[in-house]
């Protein structure tokens, strides 16, 4: 008798590499619907709507300007302070928002996940995409300030070919945030202790990038900054607009490989967790 053809076999422990990624593709319409849901529900019944996404980085920029430039006298290189901080924050905000949101995937979706099956990866993926809207708004803000400086303050702007790298940088950040976020969310379903660390950790991580200071030219500090995969992304972003930054293909390659590894580990852990997290969440 021929072996029967089953479309699905569920066992207590499947192989680590049984990832069902094809299922995620099958549910791509759901990703689109989640993105739409996030977008609509974010603005309904707020008077200022998307304006909030502008106010937040503006406040942070002026705060940094006050603390790090005026009081601590930290250099921002040849880039005007406002543009320096704003560019760093725009990039960093995308990463940290994605990371914060995806790191609570299981906990915040537990009611939905407890009632219906779909590949759980759909949720964090749609978060990464819907946060792009916020990023675009903040990016436009940055472009606005850039234009102001070019027109009124005589800032020299040269269109560099590295601008073409921007979509890749955004993708890289999204995947890095996705990977690290789902690792955290997988680890926190049972023991919530890590959640306390995450909020603090993200802030800590920001000060290990070049959001608020120029990359040191040498020494241990430089190595420490460069070990953070976000540093190369922020530096590349700045380099696309200002010719006086640090850009290095090696560092970008390092960030890319780091992202892939994190993403891979994340997907493995996430798949492991999604099968039984309902019992422990």
């Amino acid at each position, binding site marked *: 008798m021929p072996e029967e053809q089953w479309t699905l076999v569920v066992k207590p422990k499947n192989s680590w590499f049984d990832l069902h990624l094809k299922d995620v593709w099958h549910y791509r319409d759901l990703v689109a619907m989640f993105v739409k849901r996030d977008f609509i529900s974010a603005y309904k019944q707020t008077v200022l709507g998307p304006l909030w996404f502008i106010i937040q980085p503006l406040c942070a920029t002026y705060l940094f300007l006050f603390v790090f430039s005026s009081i601590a006298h930290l250099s921002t290189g040849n880039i005007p302070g406002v543009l320096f901080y704003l560019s760093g924050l725009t990039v960093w905000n995308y990463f940290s928002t994605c990371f914060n949101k995806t790191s609570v995937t299981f906990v915040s979706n537990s009611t939905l996940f407890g009632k*219906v099956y779909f590949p759980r990866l759909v949720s964090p993926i749609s978060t990464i995409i819907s946060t792009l809207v916020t990023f675009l708004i903040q990016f436009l803000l940055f472009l606005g300030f850039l234009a102001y400086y070019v027109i009124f303050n005589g800032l020299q702007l040269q269109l560099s070919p590295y601008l073409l790298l921007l979509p890749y940088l955004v993708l890289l950040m999204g995947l890095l945030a996705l990977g690290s976020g789902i690792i955290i969310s997988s680890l926190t379903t049972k023991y919530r202790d890590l959640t306390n660390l995450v909020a603090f950790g993200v802030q800590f991580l920001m000060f290990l990038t070049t959001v608020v200071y120029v990359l040191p030219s040498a020494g241990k500090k430089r190595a420490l900054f460069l070990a953070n995969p976000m540093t190369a992304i922020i530096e590349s972003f700045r380099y696309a607009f200002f010719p006086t930054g640090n850009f290095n293909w090696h560092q970008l390659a390092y960030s890319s490989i780091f992202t892939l590894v994190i993403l891979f580990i994340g997907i493995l852990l996430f798949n492991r967790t999604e099968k039984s997290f309902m019992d422990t969440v």
Partner: protein
Amino acid sequence: MKDTVIRVENLSKQYRLGMVGTGTLSHDLKRWWYSVRGKEDPFLKVGEANKRDVKGEGDYVWALRNINFEVKKGEVLGIIGKNGAGKSTLLKILSRITSPTTGEFKVKGRIASLLEVGTGFHPELTGRENIFLNGAILGMTKSEIRSKFDEIVAFSGVERYIDTPVKRYSSGMYVRLAFAVAAHLEPEILIIDEVLAVGDAEFQKKCLGKMKDVAGQGRTVLFVSHNMTAVKSLCPNSILIKQGEIVKTGTSADVIDAYLNDERQVDFEKEWKLNDAPGNDKVRMLKAKVSSPGSKQTDTLTVESEIELEFIFQNLTQLNNINLSTYFCGLDDFVIFATTSKVVERSNGLLKFTCRVPARFLNAMMYKIDVLYVSDSSVVHSFTHCLQFEIEETERKGSYWFGKWPGVIRPSLNWQETEIKEQNLTMKKAENA
């Protein structure tokens, strides 16, 4: 021979009771240490049968144990059992929400589950947007939903509000829309849990009809319900789960009989200490009792005896305008009649309610009593199955018929029997003319 589309083999599910804390961590470490050395999980050997009302010793409980069954293509299978028997756990495993502890199951075809109506509905989105969102969550593609959109809207009957956010919907409209989406799913295998317990009678009828259609189209359905009538009318075959194990499979009529007979235990009197009394933080039930005050036998209630129900409650906070709604139900949970007490204006202490049912009113059968504790017109707590008792037949006086008395009550009504003489009848006719 028909194709088997679901095969469940030795499926078991173990749960750990209590809180996740440091104890869990030490167990996890032990489990990990065993797996490193290639040994079997030590906690699989422990664990108790799934008895909800018995206080157990260990931390582990088997919600399901060694479940085996097969479902053929196009079969509509009912799954019945008491609350906590493991039905929902089984459905959760089959719909891949959680994974089994041991054993496995195999499925042929696309599977969709409906454990709740309106899963993932977002209050801010309009009806139209929610149809697409909910459909996508249930596994439909956008084009599938678009092609069925008009049908879904027509079935739901909320056409007029389709572009209004669902948070403005009445709960009935919400449920209608949600069920309409679910009803138009077209998976090969559909798993349904108690979703019929929603909506008004008319809509429930519509849902049942729709489910019959689904079953008629040759799709495989697993249906979990407490509604025996629905199970009987929808599912030719059923399985009965008790304490995590399958105790009976067969035709629905047989399985339901077995289930109801199993329920046939009698609770004449129940008393609780305040700490483990049923209820919530506002009110606890300390005592529930049924007796026949006039009769000498205390262990039997007969159709000839007056029946007294007695309930004692402890109010934990001050409640106003309290009354008690008491439902007399049959074993199938169908409410035969309901009766309410008078209103107590205010109480924050002990309250006793008694109620007398006249003799020769109830029929000879099993009754279950549900009690709703109501304050200011809203239910504070509903105590289901407080009491269960059987009214016994006595010797029928002046009757030569000994068969089962039909009906769910047997009130003795005021009959007048008068013999009419033919002479009188003709006289009346003459007067009228």
